[in-house]
């Protein structure tokens, strides 16, 4: 039980560091630490499938985020403090915590899930689908349409990313492309600053 609290506090500290640090690269790496902490906590919560997926996704998202930050000025722009946004953010945060505390009274206590539907999955899953891993039997058999929808969403988002990132269309070939797909020359980096 204590291991959960330790890991949660670790994740919260990582998140605060990620939000408040000035250097963007260290912020991104702190997010990576938060994700790895999440995967360890999933392991302790008896969810090995989620833990494996979380590690893989974490590595990929870290690569994507580093790809965003690596070419730019690495430091946060904090010349003028935006007081209004800070105050609005803090007020919203306080309200959210109060309402969340109120809402959690309606939830079943930690460690006693409801499991009305899923107890029958656990009982019948192996007999009905032939899979020893009940999570796999849920995503690939009972809720297979959800997984299909997930694949569609993933495909659409990757397609969108490619459309956004592609070099300029045929109309503007005369303009100089600034290496939209990654490596740009040294002098171009200097020029863009």
């Amino acid at each position, binding site marked *: 039980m204590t291991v959960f609290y330790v890991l949660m506090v670790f994740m919260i500290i990582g998140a605060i560091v990620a939000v408040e640090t000035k250097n963007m690269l260290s*912020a991104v790496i702190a997010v990576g630490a938060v994700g790895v902490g999440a995967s360890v906590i999933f392991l302790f919560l008896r969810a090995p499938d989620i833990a494996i997926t979380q590690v893989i*996704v974490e590595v990929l*998202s870290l690569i994507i*985020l580093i790809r*965003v930050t690596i070419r730019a000025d690495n430091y946060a722009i*904090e010349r003028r403090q935006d007081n209004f946004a800070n105050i609005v953010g803090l007020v919203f945060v306080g309200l959210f915590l109060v309402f969340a505390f109120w809402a959690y009274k309606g939830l079943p206590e930690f460690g006693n*899930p409801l499991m009305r539907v*899923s107890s029958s*999955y656990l009982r019948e899953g*192996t007999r009905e689908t032939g899979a020893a891993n009940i999570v796999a039997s849920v995503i690939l058999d009972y809720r297979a349409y959800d997984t299909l929808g997930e694949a569609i969403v993933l495909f659409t988002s990757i397609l969108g990313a490619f459309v956004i990132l592609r070099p300029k269309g045929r109309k503007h070939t005369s303009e100089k492309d600034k290496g939209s797909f990654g490596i740009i020359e040294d002098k171009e980096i200097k020029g863009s600053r």
Partner: protein
Amino acid sequence: MYILCTVLFVIGIYSIIAKRHIVKKIIGMVIIEYSVNLFLILVGYKAGGIAPILAKGQDVAEFASKGVDPLPQALVLTSIVIGLGTLALMAALAIRLYEKYNTFDMSEINRLRG
């Protein structure tokens, strides 16, 4: 436990609202995603439970009474992967904005537009 998870969520919200750097906003989004996934798994946890994987020769009745909730795990598995897709989309937008305006500062971009 739930409250600590909500604190994580709230840090992400604060990062989205109050920070001006666009990468910080993306980071806030990612933190929110982690906290929501974690919350769903926490709701499905059973104290002293076992992973929902049937071992060889294990009694099914005992397994059904001790296993943790497999349903949130399956759906969170979906949501984690979708999170990667949305992160890629957001990162692409950020790179595009940087190419166009040469800055990551959101208020600066607002000022430059039009």
